[in-house]
């Protein structure tokens, strides 16, 4: 998957987790939790959905890499380069 495809997938996941929120103005460099009402369980949803959809395993020590869109895409890009977009 390309960086754009990964970004789109993360948007889709966030859309499922926070269905009441408008994600069109999401700021790339600002942590998700500063822009959206996400708690720790929601955050675990992101990890779980990536695992379910793409079989990506994210170790707990790397959870901080998923703070913002920029850091998430940067972290996932090398790990998802061989995965096809769903």
């Amino acid at each position: 998957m390309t960086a754009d495809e990964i970004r789109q997938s993360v948007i889709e996941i966030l859309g499922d987790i926070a269905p009441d929120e408008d994600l069109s103005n999401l700021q790339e460099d600002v942590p998700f939790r500063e822009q959206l009402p996400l708690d720790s369980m929601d955050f675990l949803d992101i990890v779980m959905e990536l695992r379910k959809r793409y079989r990506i395993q994210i170790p707990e020590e790397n959870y901080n890499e998923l703070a913002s869109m920029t850091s998430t895409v940067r972290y996932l890009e090398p790990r998802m380069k061989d995965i096809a977009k769903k």
Partner: protein
Amino acid sequence: MVVERPDHQRIVITGVGLTAPNGNSLSEFRQGLLSGRSGVVPYETRYFGATVAGVCNFDEVKHQTRKELRRGTRAGSVGIFCAHEAVADAGLDWENIDRSAVGIYVGVTEHGNVETENEIYQLKGYDYDIQYWSHYHNPRTVANNPAGEISLNMGITGPHYTLGAACAAGNAGIIQGVQMLRLGDCDLALAGGVSESIHTFGIFASFHSQGALARHDDPTKASRPFDADRNGIVVAEGGCMYVLERLVDARARGARIYGEVLGYAMNSDAADFVLPHPGRQAECIRLALRRAGLNAEDVDIVSTHATGTTSGDAQEAEALRRVWGGNGRPLLNNTKSFIGHAMGAAGALELAGNLPAFEDHVCHPTINLDRLDPQCKLPGLVANEPREMAKAEVILNNSFGMLGINSVVIVGKL
């Protein structure tokens, strides 16, 4: 002679919020009960296949965000809807209520089966690799979940918990609310019961294995308590939450009062895993009457528990005969004939459907009573058509459950 209590020990109903398979407010529900409208429909559930059930159709996002809905349970959602509707119905100045003094007491027949079944089903899709097990499993399945979701949604910081009381749970929730108000543990109680049971295949399959699941070509005729052709229970979902207050508080704010909880009782059969015990049921009814300071003949309406099983209905009829004998008083009816068995919500819903009788002096019927089972013959049983009453001042509400748990609530017109 009703037991005299000081006003701060007298507990009254000032709000009702409900969702039933045939109505999403007390007025809709009552209208359904008076017009003979069933809420039982064809239903299909995982593994079990085609059956019938009482299905609710309330506006889930009226009081919940889509995010809350996604995260929470159906029982929580039912409870939140009913609690909000009850508070609105009570005319409370909710924004200025001290929410640390509000208690939430929710009766449940069971909780966690729906969520566990769903999660195991999903896990099967991942070849039972538990890395894919939901982190929501625990907060969804803890026994306090439906009450806790109400607390979270409404910002209520007083006590919240559920009462696991099989199908006596709706009454148990009300009784707990009354007791906690009398103890001074809360100043306002949101009390009643909820059920999400139609979303677990296990309840259908288990009743089926027990030979106690209703079937009929016409779903609206499947739930037929006291009828000779009854063949089991129709499982239903639903909820009913009451606002309970001390009489002194209700009067101080000029609240409309539906009725006063005059008496209650709970006891145990200590006899059989599933079969009811008429002797213990009769004792429970008598205990509630004694606590209310009432004689059996003071009761105007008995809202029966009968679920449509062969033995259960006959056993309750026997219990009622032991209390009232051949006496033509009171009138008797049954709500499950319309909506099926709403499990943890049943007792609370069935009381609610009868409360308007204090105003309109009409006893709603039990429907689908085409051929009365001689074993269930009871004077006063109101079959198929509503009946006008000269006096409607005391309602006695039966709710019984598995493992031999009995509950009775008596409500009087104020």
